[in-house]
């Protein structure tokens, strides 16, 4: 388990362990399960973004033949502990989770669940929805965070008081939290600077855009045991949320993971599951619920829109003197915008003597946000990396050299006060400096190259897995860790090397909550990092148990051996003092059956590791059509510090997929609102990039081992989404001289920015002529 032995599998491009079932169509996703007697559930959703619900009359729906159950908020058990909090990434308290699951006295966003129906066919369920009568009293809509913060704004929650470091405010507000962090003296910083740049930015609500809509099947059996098959990032998180929502003890609630068709942070909360369980309990039959795409857009948890102002000062030589940001994030209908992530990330790659961030978590009449890959960081980096580019330009410095000069390293401080361990910022920037992309001049009209960095703190939480040795010597990894990024494969690789066994002797099963040890959700780039440590412990334990068994078997009547007398390598156990006395792994494993020593099971758990901070950078070349504003990406290279690569195909895959999500966020994607109503709830008008909108995405991985964990692994899932929008904005600026401060940078916004610039130049020329 030391990192010095050469690995057979770690670092190799091993094909995905579960790929075969995916290319043959046999992998079971959320909507693929069918149980005997299964009913179909559908949700009645509020057409109003903000309205009191005065009355719900479901009697006509219930009278329809084939309708087996209707549920409303009334069917939830009463609330006890309102402050219990859930989430894993973006936290939500129980009272809010209940109200998010199904509207109580008020509908707070368009698409908010109001009632649910189970019927013998989908069309009967649909017919029943039309028969439910709801009396709404429509309320004024709070459309965005800036409006929400106004003193006279309509309130979403009568009992929401701003949480600050100061005293509890006397009046409720739409501002849930104000966070302030930082160090140093900013006034001095601005005074010491030769150039100070201040700029405001705006980003829109976007969606994770996973292709698999939420789906689940719930069945409450005759004993009251609950079985839920669902497409979730964390079975245990789902189990805890359901247990709290429904007041059911954990042993009565089994969450069974379905394959997840993409999640990116958006499949952490339970959404359909509680409704499906309530329906199943009433109807006495299994209930399947599947969202359609419009429901996915309206009623799941997209990513926070943000308003960010950044101020940055530097000396003529490029040394930063101070960094400041005000971040306002829109959480949607309930508190919990990713202000922590945004705050940690916004200046993370840099050092400066003074830094400060003020961040606001604000509620509005929109769907409650959830995590989206590096939650908070992408909007933050769009603002900070654009501002730093402006600053570099004002100083006449090369954007790469400017960043290198200010690059944070071990011992420097994040704005939150965290002191960095070993980090890869400099290594990434050095890699760019050497890269052919950076060193190939970009020629041609209306073309430009942009650079930006990204960061993610790296989540930790609790992870565990079991490693079980079968009597034939093969090995089973048993885990509740849902695989959303290929972690089954990397876990197999790690265990094969840790046990020094051939890969094909090992298999892995992602099991349900009833038969695997507790492990937290798969999110926040924590899975491979924390599982590397958990598996190392499990494997250590397995080898110790195997050694004990080998010692027992190799003992002679005249000499009792202890595990300390046994050496292990490459599938063989031998006596240290007498290497001729050897037992192969398989034989030692077989002893389990005959010697009564019990099964060999190693359980590994970790909860505390030093964070493995993650950094990335992206370089992109664009060409802008000034007549239409359309941006074409000519070349794109993603750089990232992976700590240690377990599987290069998978790391590249994360980098490329994340980069393209960043491109979509930068150029195309946004929720178009009309007074709280979504105008583009389809994949036609919510434009995810297609293959034709992109070039190949080149990757360059650097490896600066993480300060903690057995292998030096860093998470790789989050950082690749972060730099894209800023890199594009910086490239567009260099191509056509316009600085875009709002996302997305659609052709139309680029076009008008160019027109404005032309107009300004024209006016200047005219004024110049006059003088």
């Amino acid at each position, binding site marked *: 388990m030391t990192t010095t032995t050469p690995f057979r599998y770690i670092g190799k491009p091993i094909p995905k362990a579960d790929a075969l079932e995916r290319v043959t169509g046999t992998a079971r996703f959320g909507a693929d399960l069918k149980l005997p007697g299964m009913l179909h559930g559908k949700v009645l959703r509020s057409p109003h973004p903000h309205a009191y619900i005065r009355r719900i009359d479901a009697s006509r729906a219930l009278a329809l033949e084939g309708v087996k159950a209707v549920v409303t908020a009334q069917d939830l058990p009463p609330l006890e502990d309102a402050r219990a909090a859930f989430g894993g990434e973006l936290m939500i308290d129980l009272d809010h989770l209940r109200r998010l699951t199904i509207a109580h006295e008020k509908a707070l966003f368009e698409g908010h669940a109001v009632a649910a129906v189970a019927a013998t066919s989908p*069309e009967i369920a*649909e017919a029943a929805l039309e028969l439910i009568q709801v009396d709404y009293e429509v309320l004024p809509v709070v459309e965005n965070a800036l409006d929400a913060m106004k003193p006279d704004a309509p309130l979403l929650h009568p009992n929401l008081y701003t949480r600050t470091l100061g005293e509890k405010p006397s009046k409720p507000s739409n501002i849930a939290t104000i966070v302030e962090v930082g160090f140093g003296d900013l006034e001095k910083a601005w005074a010491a600077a030769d150039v100070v740049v201040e700029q405001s930015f705006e980003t829109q609500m976007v969606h994770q855009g996973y292709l698999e809509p939420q789906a689940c099947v719930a069945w409450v059996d005759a004993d009251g045991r609950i079985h839920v098959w669902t497409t979730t990032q964390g079975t245990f998180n789902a189990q805890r949320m359901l247990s709290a929502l429904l007041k059911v003890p954990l042993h009565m609630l089994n969450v069974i993971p379905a394959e997840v068709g993409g999640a990116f942070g958006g499949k952490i909360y339970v959404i359909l599951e509680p409704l499906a369980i309530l329906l199943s309990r009433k109807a006495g039959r299994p209930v399947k619920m599947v969202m359609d795409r*419009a429901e996915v857009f309206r009623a799941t948890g997209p990513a926070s829109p943000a308003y960010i102002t950044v101020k940055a000062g530097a000396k003529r030589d490029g040394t930063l003197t101070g960094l400041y940001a005000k971040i306002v994030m829109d959480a949607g209908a309930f508190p919990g915008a990713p202000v922590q992530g945004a705050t940690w990330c916004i200046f993370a790659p840099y050092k400066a003597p003074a830094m400060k961030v003020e961040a606001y978590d604000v509620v509005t009449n929109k769907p409650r946000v959830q995590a989206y890959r590096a939650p908070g960081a992408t909007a933050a980096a769009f603002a900070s990396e654009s501002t730093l580019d402006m600053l570099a330009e004002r100083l006449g410095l090369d954007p790469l050299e400017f960043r290198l000069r200010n690059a944070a390293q071990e011992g420097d401080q994040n704005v939150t006060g965290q002191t960095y361990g070993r980090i890869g910022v400099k290594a990434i920037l050095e890699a760019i400096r050497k890269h052919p992309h950076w060193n190939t001049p970009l020629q041609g009209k209306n073309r430009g190259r942009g650079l930006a960095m990204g960061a993610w703190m790296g989540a930790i939480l609790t992870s565990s897995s079991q490693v079980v040795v079968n009597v034939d010597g093969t090995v089973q990894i048993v885990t509740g860790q849902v695989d959303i990024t290929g972690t089954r494969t990397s876990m197999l690789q790690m265990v094969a090397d840790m046990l020094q066994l051939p890969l094909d002797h090992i298999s892995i099963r992602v099991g349900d909550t009833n038969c695997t040890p507790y492990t937290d959700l798969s999110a926040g780039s924590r899975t491979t990092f924390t599982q590397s440590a958990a598996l190392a412990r499990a494997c250590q334990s397995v080898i110790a148990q195997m050694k004990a068994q080998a010692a027992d078997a190799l003992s002679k009547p005249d000499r009792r051996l202890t595990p300390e007398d046994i050496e292990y390598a490459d599938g063989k156990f031998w006596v240290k003092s007498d290497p001729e006395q050897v037992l192969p792994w398989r034989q030692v494993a077989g002893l389990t059956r005959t010697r009564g020593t019990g099964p060999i099971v190693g359980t590994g758990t970790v909860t505390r590791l030093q964070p493995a901070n993650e950094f990335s950078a992206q370089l992109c070349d664009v060409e802008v059509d000034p*007549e*239409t504003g*359309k941006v074409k990406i000519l070349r794109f290279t993603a750089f990232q510090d992976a700590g240690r690569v377990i599987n290069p195909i998978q790391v590249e895959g994360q980098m490329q997929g994340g980069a393209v999500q960043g491109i979509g966020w930068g*150029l*195309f994607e946004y929720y*178009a609102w009309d007074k709280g109503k979504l*105008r*583009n709830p389809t994949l*036609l*008008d919510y*434009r995810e*990039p*297609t293959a*034709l*909108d992109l070039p190949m995405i080149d990757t360059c991985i650097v490896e600066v081992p993480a300060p903690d964990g057995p292998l030096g692994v860093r998470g790789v899932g989050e950082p690749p989404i972060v730099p894209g929008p800023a890199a594009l904005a910086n490239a567009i600026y260099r191509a056509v001289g316009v600085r875009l401060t709002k996302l997305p940078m*659609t*052709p*139309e916004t680029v*076009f*008008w920015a160019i027109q404005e610039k032309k107009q300004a130049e024209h006016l200047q020329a005219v004024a110049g002529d006059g003088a």
Partner: protein
Amino acid sequence: MRPFEYVAPKRLREAYAILAQADGRTVRPLAGGTDLIDQLRVGRKRADLVMDVKHIPELMRLEWGPRKGLYIGAGVPCYRVYKDPVVAQHYPAIRDGAMLVGSWQIQHRASLGGNICNAAPSADTVPPLLVYEAIAHIGGPRGEREVPLERFFTGPGQTVLAPDEILLGVRVPPPPPRSSSHYLRFIPREEMDIAVAGVASLVALDSRGVVARARIALSAVAPTPVRARDAEAVLEGQRPTPALLVEAGEKAVLATNPITDVRGSIAYRKELVKVLTRRTLSKALADLGITLE
């Protein structure tokens, strides 16, 4: 989806009989279904009976004769149109338009007839047909009639079809001599998008290189696809120059009456019309050996 009945007549007469006996029920013709099925699913349209027209031989014809021109049956899917060598040779803009509709999966189903009858202002196959002055061939239990395609549309989603009528096909007259045409649309992505604005241009030159005929038609910038007659007039009788093309673009804007929606603003759409008019004209002229850009 809300329940409906389905019928697939194999002869035109059967189809007419079904329409004649509708008796207050909503009968919806179904060609490729790429508009209709989603509209039924989300409840934007309702149907009591869906009548699949793809088994009616008359609607699946794609025929050409040098004197008669082209006949495109209403049910013929886009891929058959743009893969047809005759269309590619004689009607480049029609090929362009058919190639732009959706993805390959969509093009294997989506028909020109459906694109026309759906009557979206953004329909990509319509401006190319308008520049060739295509004629809609309509039929029903009360008889058949022909209407210039330009007059077929009465508003967004609205046409001259009576409830008991269907589109049988479009007749496209032979192209004028020494002519070419192109259609371009603007979308934010490269594919899979609905036009923010689209322009089809046709130019025919006489023996002296003067524009003998110009036809320009626009999509997504008015309640229906429209001809830009002022722009055409600017070109006809003139020798093409870069400045003339710019002027034509500006004149084309006069025919627009766009709206602001999620896909684009009024002002932006007008700007796009200028650019696309110029670009389609110069592409068509380039085919005729005149390079201006």
